[in-house]
């Protein structure tokens, strides 16, 4: 029998790696696009009972949503539950109800068929919307339709609570209602068509240590139940129906990943110091309190990038001073005596695009964002600074301004800091006295005037993601040119080198808080050590790996490597040079070369 089966073709997809690890298993596909509902005729005498069934299904769905809303509110807070209010209101929509009832009567079709058609009409309007964010709200409407139709057909929502054996969970989008009540032991990995690294699925996967890849365009439509899948949450690759050869390669990669993970976690309590004694501050990037445990368990010392946008976006009103102060203070207390670098609001650009919606600006990345935004909204800026300075009474705090491109911005921001300190003193608040002020280096113009900027601040922190995109003029989200996005482009290495040199000449320290240590793996980390960075800040899960690399090399050899690399004219040559170095001197680090063996 088996021999007669048509061999399914291997397909390789790629998405955003959201939680590290490699998993193998059969697909469990949830929230498959709505159940197929054709125009199912009913008999004349069944029309009225059918309408009653429709009303009951709406009521039952509303009850489900109310329950879900309560659970969500308890688990994640009122703000997260709010979206369900709009789902509940959709059920109460009189126009929709009337149209459906009219269609059941007028056309003599089942409630499921009628309701499906009425909603379909609405959805078609959505597909034509220009605004991406508003257009994607059609997902919410589909979600509600799916619930109602399942209730009409007497089927349970196939959430993960129904999973009874180990599987790779595949979904278009993983919503809180899908993941509620899931059992950790059955979920081998998550793959979703939409979502970014801050989506619900990604956050949940990381907190449970489940490998996940999100944003795999069109995957759930391709994967059939029980198809074999390999998920590589490190590279972001997902293989559907792998050949035995692919399977073997990934088994090896998985084995290595496991060994490494165990080994790395033993490094937790050691310092990040090179073989010849150069100490590098290794700290973590966080955006909310829940991530702090993760950071501590992975051995980070301090927070190198505390993103504050989380607090501002996805809520109806601006947070006040007291609310911000308490939030920052709690974080500072938990991290003390290690320092917390708080980045002032970096709203705009990608943040608006990814978290709120399409920004109305034609070119948000070159628009009103970071320090440009806060300097023009001094009320918001001052409130945030007051809260940060007050929190600094509880432990070492450093303030960092994002998106600096001209010197005047730094002077203006510093002047506001001084005023805020004066005000706090006059108003007799407790506040931190020795708060260092630094800036992010993420525009090529900031690198070019780094020596001037260095005289005005206490530290630099290179934001590698934006620096790469602004320097190479590449939007990573644009598939046609994404291949040009490369942190190892010689220009980037030179700019980083120049930045560190300018900092050290002016006796200030320099760090880096981008994803360069993640996406460029050992290549990036080695060059950053060689460039003489004093601090590296990374997501928690990467910290053990970076520490291992730092502890495996000498500063001296990393510096020589950087010097050689600075002579190269392409990223390929740079990689080849580092490969050569690794093979000759540190073969044990070849483990960390991205995609090795897979």
């Amino acid at each position, binding site marked *: 029998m088996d021999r007669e089966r048509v061999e399914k073709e291997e397909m390789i997809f790629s998405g955003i790696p959201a939680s590290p690890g490699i998993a193998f298993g059969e697909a469990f596909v949830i929230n498959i696009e709505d159940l197929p509902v054709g125009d199912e005729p009913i008999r004349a005498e069944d029309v009225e009972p059918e309408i009653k069934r429709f009303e009951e299904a709406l009521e039952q769905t509303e009850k489900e949503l109310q329950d879900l809303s309560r659970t969500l509110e308890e688990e994640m807070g009122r703000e997260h539950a709010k979206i369900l209010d709009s789902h509940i209101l959709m059920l109460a929509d009189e126009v929709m109800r009337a149209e459906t009832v009219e269609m059941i009567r007028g056309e003599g079709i089942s409630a499921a068929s009628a309701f499906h058609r009425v909603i379909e009409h609405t959805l078609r309007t959505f597909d034509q919307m220009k605004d991406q964010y508003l257009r994607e709200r059609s997902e919410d409407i589909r979600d509600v339709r799916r619930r109602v139709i399942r209730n009409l057909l007497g089927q349970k929502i196939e959430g993960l609570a129904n999973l009874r054996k180990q599987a790779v969970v595949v979904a278009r989008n993983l919503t809180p209602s899908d993941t509620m009540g899931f059992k950790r032991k059955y979920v081998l990995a998550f793959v979703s068509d939409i979502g970014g690294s801050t989506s619900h699925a990604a956050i949940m996967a990381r907190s449970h240590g489940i490998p996940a890849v999100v944003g795999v365009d069109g995957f759930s439509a391709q994967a059939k139940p029980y198809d074999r899948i390999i998920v590589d949450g490190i590279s972001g690759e997902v293989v559907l129906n792998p050949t035995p050869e692919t399977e073997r390669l990934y088994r090896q990669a998985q084995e290595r990943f496991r060994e490494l993970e165990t080994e790395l976690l033993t490094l937790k309590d050691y310092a990040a110091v090179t073989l010849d004694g150069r100490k590098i501050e290794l700290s973590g990037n966080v955006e909310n309190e829940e991530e702090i445990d993760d950071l501590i368990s992975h051995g980070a010392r301090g927070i190198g990038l505390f993103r504050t946008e989380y607090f501002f976006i996805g809520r109806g009103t601006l947070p006040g001073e007291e609310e911000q102060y308490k939030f920052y203070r709690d974080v500072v207390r938990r991290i003390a005596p290690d320092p917390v670098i708080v980045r002032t609001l970096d709203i705009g650009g990608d943040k*608006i695009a990814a978290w709120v919606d399409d920004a109305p600006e034609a070119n948000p990345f070159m628009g009103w964002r970071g320090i440009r935004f806060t300097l023009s909204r001094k009320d918001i800026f001052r409130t945030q600074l007051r809260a940060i300075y007050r929190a600094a009474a509880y432990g070492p705090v450093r303030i960092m301004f994002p998106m600096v491109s001209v010197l005047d911005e730094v002077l203006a921001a510093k002047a506001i800091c001084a005023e805020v300190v004066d005000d706090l003193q006059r108003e007799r608040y407790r506040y931190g006295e020795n708060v260092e002020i630094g800036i992010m280096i993420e525009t090529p113009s900031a690198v070019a005037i780094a020596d001037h900027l260095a005289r005005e601040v206490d530290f630099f922190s290179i934001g590698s993601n934006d620096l790469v995109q602004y320097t190479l003029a590449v939007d990573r989200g644009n598939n046609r040119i994404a291949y040009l996005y490369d942190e190892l482009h010689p220009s980037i290495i030179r700019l980083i080198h120049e930045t560190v040199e300018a900092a050290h000449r002016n006796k200030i320290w320099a760090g880096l808080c981008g994803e360069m240590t993640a996406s460029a793996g050992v290549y990036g980390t080695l060059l950053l050590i060689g460039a003489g960075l004093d601090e590296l800040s990374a997501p928690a899960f990467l910290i053990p790996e970076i520490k291992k690399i730092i502890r495996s090399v000498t500063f001296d050899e990393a510096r020589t490597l950087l010097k050689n690399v600075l002579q190269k004219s392409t990223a390929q040559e740079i990689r080849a040079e580092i490969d050569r170095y690794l093979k000759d001197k540190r073969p044990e680090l070849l483990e960390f070369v991205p995609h090795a063996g897979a």
Partner: protein
Amino acid sequence: MLTGTVRVVNRTGIHLRLASEIVKAASQFRAKVTLTKGDLTVDAKSMLGVAMLGAEYDTELRLSVEGEDEKEAIDTLTGLFENNFGREVI
């Protein structure tokens, strides 16, 4: 019947949460309330209808209200748009 124009000052347009607020506000009144964008007119008491407008930032909408409490209804709804649903405009 009373009519007026309102403008979407919320940067993120009329997303679902704002749509809910419009529906809740309109539903307090007996008057019939409609919103029009281009040639699409929807019932402001219908969640799907308001969401379907796809009203982006800076869109101008026509508001029509008809019924015994129309004066109060139009003031409430216009006010809601004018103060951006009680949200800070950024």
